[in-house]
Every structure is written in C-alpha cells, then in structure tokens.
C-alpha cells in the first residue's frame, strides 16, 4: 500500500469510528437565522397556552412569563429548547412534546404579534433596579442591562440580536426566577444564556428583586 492509499484508508477508518470527542451540547444562537411563522395559524394552536400565559399571552399569574409582544425569535428558541428537553424538567417540556417545529414557529409569531397590556399586578418602582438597569454596578461587576436589552428594555434594535428578549413589563416573579437560575448555573444551554450566566453571577437576591420589580413596573 503506498502512502496516499494508506492515508486515505486511515481517514476512512477514522471517520467511521464512533465519535469520541465531546459533541456540542449547547445551542449556538449567534447569528441564528430569523424565524418565520404564521401568526394566524399560531392563534389556533395557542388555546392551551393562554390557560397559563393569559389571554393573548398577557399572563396575570406572576410566576408565568408574559408572552404578548415578546420577540418571535426569542419565543421560538425558548420553545425549541423545551421541546429538545435540554432544560431541566419543566411543565413546558410536556406541553411542547407534541408540537411540530412549524407549530413552534407559528406560536412564536402569534404571541409576538399580540399587544402587551399593562400588568394588573401592583407596580413597585425601584431606584436600585433602575440604577442597575441603566448603569450596572461596577463595584460588583454587574454590567448595565440596557447594553443588550435596549435603553427601553424592549430588546436590542439591531436585528442581529433578535433572539435577545424584551424585558419591559415582564412579570417580576418570573424575571427573578430566571435570573436566580442563571446565577446558580442552571438553565443555560444556549450561547445567549451563557452570557446571562456570567452577568447574573454578580447579582445577589436583593439586586435581582430590585431589577425584577423595576422592569415589571413599566408598561410594556
């Protein structure tokens, strides 16, 4: 066997061998293609969702996220991750199990197209929350949230970052729960969430509560 043949043989053998290196087990949302869904079709499938997430996705239960007006790309990837089972067991895993990928697109489009209403929950303005959102806290290594989520907390204007969510008017309990999960190293399977894991590491319970309260206190 001459050298090139030997090398080809080796190559084929290597490719045929079982994969030994660690596979990518996270989702790369950097530069993810924009999603397209049909809001009207999504509306038909949203009946189950509104039970928890409220009419048109305007959830009133503080622990559940408000979906109305949220960015479609964010919603889609969040749903897709539930469906993949990549997250810790969640009630959403079962909810998405029987949905097709097209369904997820449509649902995301539907909720994104809904008009968010102001939460009926009592607003709790927080100066500390506002300060963290606008300026961060360099002493603790907290970057200002507005850098990525937009000065108005409606998400970044740049379409390259469509998978980054709007925070304005979101339910405070939900926000706090998510931030705590990030901080404690849970619930991070995508590149975006890796960023949040690093950011939340600098937040203590008090800071999380202040931020969540301040964000929730705004009209969407």
């Amino acid at each position: 066997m001459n050298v090139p043949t030997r090398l080809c043989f080796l190559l084929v053998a290597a490719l045929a061998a079982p994969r030994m290196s660690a596979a990518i087990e996270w989702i790369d949302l950097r530069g993810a293609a924009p999603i397209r869904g049909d809001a009207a079709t999504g509306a038909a499938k949203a009946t189950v969702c509104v039970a928890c997430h409220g009419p048109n996705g305007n959830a009133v239960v503080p622990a559940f996220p408000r979906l109305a007006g949220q960015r479609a790309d964010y919603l889609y990837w969040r749903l897709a991750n539930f469906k993949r089972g990549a997250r810790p067991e969640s009630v959403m895993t079962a909810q998405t199990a029987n949905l097709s990928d097209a369904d997820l697109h449509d649902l995301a489009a539907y909720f994104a197209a809904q008009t968010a209403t102001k939460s009926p929950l009592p607003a709790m303005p927080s100066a500390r929350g506002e300060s963290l959102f606008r300026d961060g806290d360099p002493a603790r290594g907290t970057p200002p949230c507005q850098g990525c989520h937009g000065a108005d907390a409606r998400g970044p204007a740049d379409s390259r970052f469509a998978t980054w969510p709007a925070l304005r008017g979101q339910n405070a309990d939900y926000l706090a729960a998510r931030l705590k999960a990030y901080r404690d190293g849970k619930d991070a399977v995508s590149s975006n969430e890796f960023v949040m894991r690093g950011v939340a590491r600098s937040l203590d319970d008090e800071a999380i509560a202040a931020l969540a309260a301040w964000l929730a206190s705004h009209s969407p």
Partner: protein
Amino acid sequence: MLLSSVALADSGVGVDTWRATKLDPTAGAAVEGCDERGTWWLVPGQRRTPTGNLYPCPPASAPLHERGDWTYSGVLQLGYLGTGGDDDAALWNRYAFWDTGPVLGLLSVDAERAQDGSYAKLRATRVSDDDQYYQLAFGRAGSYRLQASLRDISNVLSANAKSIWNGVGSNTLTLSDGLTPGGSTPEQVAAVSSAAAERTLKVKRSKQVLGYSAYLTPDWSAYADFSNEQRKGARPYGGTFFFNFPFPGNGGVFETVKPIDDSTMNLNAGLRYAGAAWRLDFGYSGSFYRDANRRYTFQTPYALTPVVPNAVSAPLTTGQMSTEPDNDYHNLKAALTRKLPLNGEFSLTASVGRMRQDDTLIAPVDCRGVFGIGLGGSLQLGPHNPFLYDCAQWNTPAALSRKSADMQIDTTLLDARIALQPTADLSVRGGLRFNRDDYRNGYLMRNPLTGQYGYVSENGSQGSVVPGESGIWAPGADARNLTRIRSLPLDLQTIDANLGADWKLGERDTLGATFAFNRYEPTNRERRQVDSSSLKLNWINRSLDWLTLRASLTFLKQTGDRYDYDPYEFTWSSSLPGFIAPPGGVPAHTVEAMRKYDLSSRDQRKANVMATLTPREDMTLTASLRGDWNDYDARIGRQGYSTFGATLQWEWQPTPRTQTSVYYGYDRSRLREANVNELNASGVDPRLGGLTYPLAGRWWVTDTQRNHSAGANLRHDFGRVRLDVDWNNLYARGVTAYSYASSLALAWSDTVPNDAAGSGAFAPMRYRVDTLALALVIPIVERVSLRAFGVYERGRVDDWHYAGFGTGRVIDHRVYTDGGPQDYSAHLVGILLDVQL
C-alpha cells in the same frame, strides 16, 4: 517595551527570533485546534484586523493544572517518523533533516504563577540529530526574562557528491587510491570518480543561546544576548590548476570539497530608557568568528604541459585554498529621541563599529622544488630558465611582505530624523543619514626574499603552462608581466536625505509624498560619486467597510560623476616604476562602454498595490501587484532589470471548525545585459567599436524568470477527527536567451555555420515542486489523541549548468564533485501520540 524585550528575542536587535522545525513551523501553535465555541458568545465569527484580515479562531488551549502557587499546562508529542522514496535528496532534506526513527514532535510546558506573574516555558522538538531545538525560558511578566536554547540545523548542499579525494571534511584532500598526483589520465580519474560512492555534503549549525532582558525601573530596561554557533561539515567548492578549455589535456579545473569547521560568538547587550519626554537606546554588538582551518589543500591528478615547444612544466601536485580569516567585530550604538510639540519626535542615532582581522597569512604557494616552465627540457634553476621559479622562495611565510593580514574597516553611522504631526490630518518628516566605511590598510604583494612583486597564480600552474604568466613581476626579465601587486581598499560613504509629508483627506484617504536623495561615494571604483533622487507617492484608501487599499509609486533617477572604466591601475604592476609596457601599449583593462550596474546611471519606476477585501463576513481576499522597472544607461553591462508580481489569496473561516485558504502567485523578472568579446587579446583600444572591442563582438543576454505558485489549505474538524490538508505548488521556469552580432562574440565560433549574427537560448531552467501534506488528529481518550500525518513531495529540477553530468563528472582535465540538483519524489509518514499533560 514589555513584549518585545521579554519575548523570545528582540525585534530590534539580533537574530534567533524563532525556534521551530519544518515538522511544525509554528513551534506548537498548530498543535492546538480551534476552540469550537468560537471567540465570544455575543456574536458569531471573528473580528478583523484593522487592515481587514480575519483573526484566526482562538486555540483550544491545553487544560491548566495547579500545583502550589503555580498553574501549568503542557503538551507532549512522541512518535515515529518514516521516510521513503528519494529521501536522501538534498532539496528534500535541506534545513529539515528528516530521518526514519523516533521523534519528539513537541514537548511544551508552560507554567505560571498568578501571584506575581512569574512564568517558565519549556519547548523542545527533535526530528533528528540534524534538526532539533531545546529551549527554556524563565521570567516574570513585566520584570525580567532569562532563556537558554540549543539548536541544530543542517544545510544539505549535495546528496550526490562523488569525491576523487580522500579526507573529505578535513583540510587535506589526497587523491584516492589508483590516482597518481600529477600523473593520472582523465580516463583514470573518470573511473575513480564514477566508482566513488555518492555521499552527502552538508554543513550543520549547532547553536547555543543565552538571553536575558529585564526592566530595571519602569523607564529603564536592559538586555544581553549571547550566542555561540559551530558550523561543521563540508561543501563543494572550487580549486584551480589553470584553464582546460583552451588547452585540451592540460590544466586542471577542480570542484573540491571545502571543510567547514568554525564557530561564531555573538554578543548583544544594551540599556534602554523610555521616559515621558526622552528615550535612549544604548547597544553593543560584538561578533567573533573563529575558523579551525586557515586553508585546505588538494592534490591534482593531472600533469601540466607548457604551451611552448621544447619545454617542460614543473611537476606541481598540490593546490591550496585559503579559508575565511578569523575576525572580530564591535559596534556601539546610541540613539536618543526627544518628544517635540506638535506630536512630534526628533531622533538622533550614532553608531561606530570596527571589523578587524589579523589572521596569519598562508604562504603564496604549496610546492616543493620549482614551479614554472623549464626550457629545453631542463628544470634546473638558473639564468637559462627565466620562467622557472624556486618553490623555496615562495612556499614560506617569509615570502610575504607581512605575516598577518592586519585588515580593518571602521564604520560610522549618524542618523537624524524628525517627524511632526501639526494637525490630526497632516504629518511631515525628514531625515538625514551619514554612513561611512573606512577601509584601513592595504597589502602590497612584494616578496622580501626575492624582491619580486605579485603572486603565484593558480597554485603555480598558470606560469607552468604559459611562460611569463606566473603572476610575478620584477624589474628586468619579468618587467613586462602585467599582474596584480596590491590589494584593493574599498572605502564607502553614503549620505541620505529625505523629506516627506502625509495628508489625511478626511476619514477615507491618505496621500503621501516623499522625496529622497542619496549620494554614494566609494573609493577606487569607477565613479567617485553616484547620486540618486527619488519621489515616492503613496495612497491609502479605507473608504469602504470591505476594502483597505495601499498603493505607491516611486520614480528614481540615478546619475553620477564621470565614469572611469579603469580605476584599478594602481593595483597592477603597470603602476610600478620599471614596468615595461608591451610594444603596442598596456592592454585595455576593459571596454570603456562598460557600466557596472551598481554605479551606472539608471531610471527606476516602482509600483505597489496591496488590497484587502472582505466579500463576506467570513471571507478575506488579499491581492497584491508589484512592479519594479529599471533602465540602465549602459551600452555594455546590465541594461535592464524588471520584476513584476501579483498574488491573490482567499481565506474562508465559515465556522471555528472549518478554515480554508487558496492562493495563487505569479512573478516574473527579466534581466537584460550586453557584453562584447575582443578581437585581439592584447588589444589596447578600450573603445566599443574600436580595434580591440569591435561592434561585431557584441552579444546580449536576456534572462527571464517566471514563477507560478499555487496552494490550498483546508482544516476541518469532523468531530471524530480533525483533518489538515495542505497543497503547495511552485513552477519556476527560467530562460536564458542570447543573441550576438557575429560569431566573433562566441566562445566557440566553430559551433555556428557562419560569421553572421545569430541568437539562441539555453534549455529552460526548471524547478517544480509539489507538496501534499495531510494530517489527521484522532482523539482517543480525553487529553490523548493520535496525530497521523504524511507529506508527499515531488521535485523536478533542470539546471543546464549540470547538463550531461549524469554520464560522468570528469571531462578532460575538469573534475566535478557535485552532480547538480536532483529530481526527487519522497514521502514522510509519521504517527505522534499527542498527550496534554
């Protein structure tokens, strides 16, 4: 100053800036694959350099371990290398002595202590005895660095040498068995040559380096680097016992084997200051060269025959070749820079140096008895034998006008420059530079034993074949001999001045212009003053996100004072009192119309364009165009030299797991020269078109070199395996074409049918190399992977100098040792176990 003064070596002083082998020219960087996570979590892809090239993906570095205060990481690659095909070929092994056997691909350990910034680094590779390095560095970031390294590298000069001498590599070459000094026939020599085993001639450089650099304070830093390098081996060289071409069966032309056995010590040390307003840089460089040999000798197998009847040549059998003299070099340099208002700087540098050698001189000739021609068949010295010389008067250092060389060049450099940036959009600069080499001493060739001037030409052989051409001049019988009697001291002086400005036209364009003047004043050359003036215009454009363009145009004109075609008269016996010119006069030194190209008047135009384009976020296209056109004002000599080149390169990094690049380069150079053959070998008329150099003797050569280069590289991580494929190709073709005014121009006019003008060309000189390199990295378990690689290379070389050498390297009284460059097809396969420590 942090990085360069504590990096491997200094970008400002000395060599040894890189230690690697052909196995991995990146010295370990190529070992690390890409971090599949990319550069950052926020956005995909890579950023671009300010020029627009993509930064590579960051490497997946070896895991860090902790031990006490220290963290460390390391890589060990051990394995086996096998070579095949024509794996002895010189071009395959040059500077990379592949060998079958175990190989240390890389041992790399990096340790650091976060507490204070201390670090230690070890790097080593061993491919073979002739290709290895070991390097250890220890330091503290921003404080100091100490390092030591050992390195071996071989330059393979010939892999098909056949020597008719014993003692290759020594300073005494004696003829192989079966050959009689001064008494062998070409057939006998040819038989010995063809029966000789092919051998490799190489020179191995072994170097030891010690380096130290440190910050003494935030403003003061110091460095000292010491190196010692030994060169050992042998290389093809020359050796002469007079012409063979005019005298079949006579003379002797030898490609001998020169022993290389020397060492060089280099020392660089300096002190630097960088303050808020002032900067200082003091440096010393020293170099000390020592050669174990002062000369080597070789035996000639051939007898010499006089060209006159009824005479006999002296039986010379030994030739000698001096080696390079031991030399010492010192240089002191001081640079002072002052910041100026208007964002400016003024800088003044002074440097003085001395190169000196005072090697003991060898005797003019290595012979016993007599040299020269014995008339009437007698080799008895005496008045009846005016062309016969006594070896005893010339084979001893006593025959020299002084015993040692005592040569020295003192160098001086002064450089002043200023740069000002009065506004953000305008910068102006100017510089003045003075450089001088003072050549101290000269050598008059006078034999105090005999009172004669001159030298013993070609180991005594020339005067043993042609009466009166011994190289010796003396009043009386030898007073007509035209020979060299003095050395040629070469003082040089250069003054440079330049003035330039750059304007920023908004954010996008920068225009620049530089005017430069150079005055070169050599002594004892054809011109005493050569002036050149140039104007360089340049343009930078960054108008678009996807383009950086840099272009420049240069116009240069070189002129000078009167061109004296023969400034060398004083080095010849014709300058001595008592010299008797031949009846017709002293032959012309050369043709008056010759203009040596370093001094001739010349027009030069240069153009340079470099463009970096980004057609897509993950792609880069780089293109360059370069042209350099020189027209020389020379009827005889170099008339034109132009080069033109273009390159195109495409790089694509779609993901951290995949990178690929493709390039193509084209390069052409054309050299035009004119020369003239003489009508009369002792003619005295220097004019082109005159009696000695008639127009009919003119000839022209155009040498055109073309290079096509192409290559492609793919690196892809399949997950299970990482693949690296590299293909490089070079196709070079050089054509030397000639034309002539008549057959008078030719060395051998009988080879053309008539006296008319004609033309022709040598067979193309070709060099074609294809290299395919393949590497696979297969992870086995965590931190252990297998690296399998192969290199296949095919080289094709045609060099007409060696045409016909395949059928024998002994052609009458010419003996060639090297068979010339060889075609080859060779390959290398290797397996390395790659362990992250």
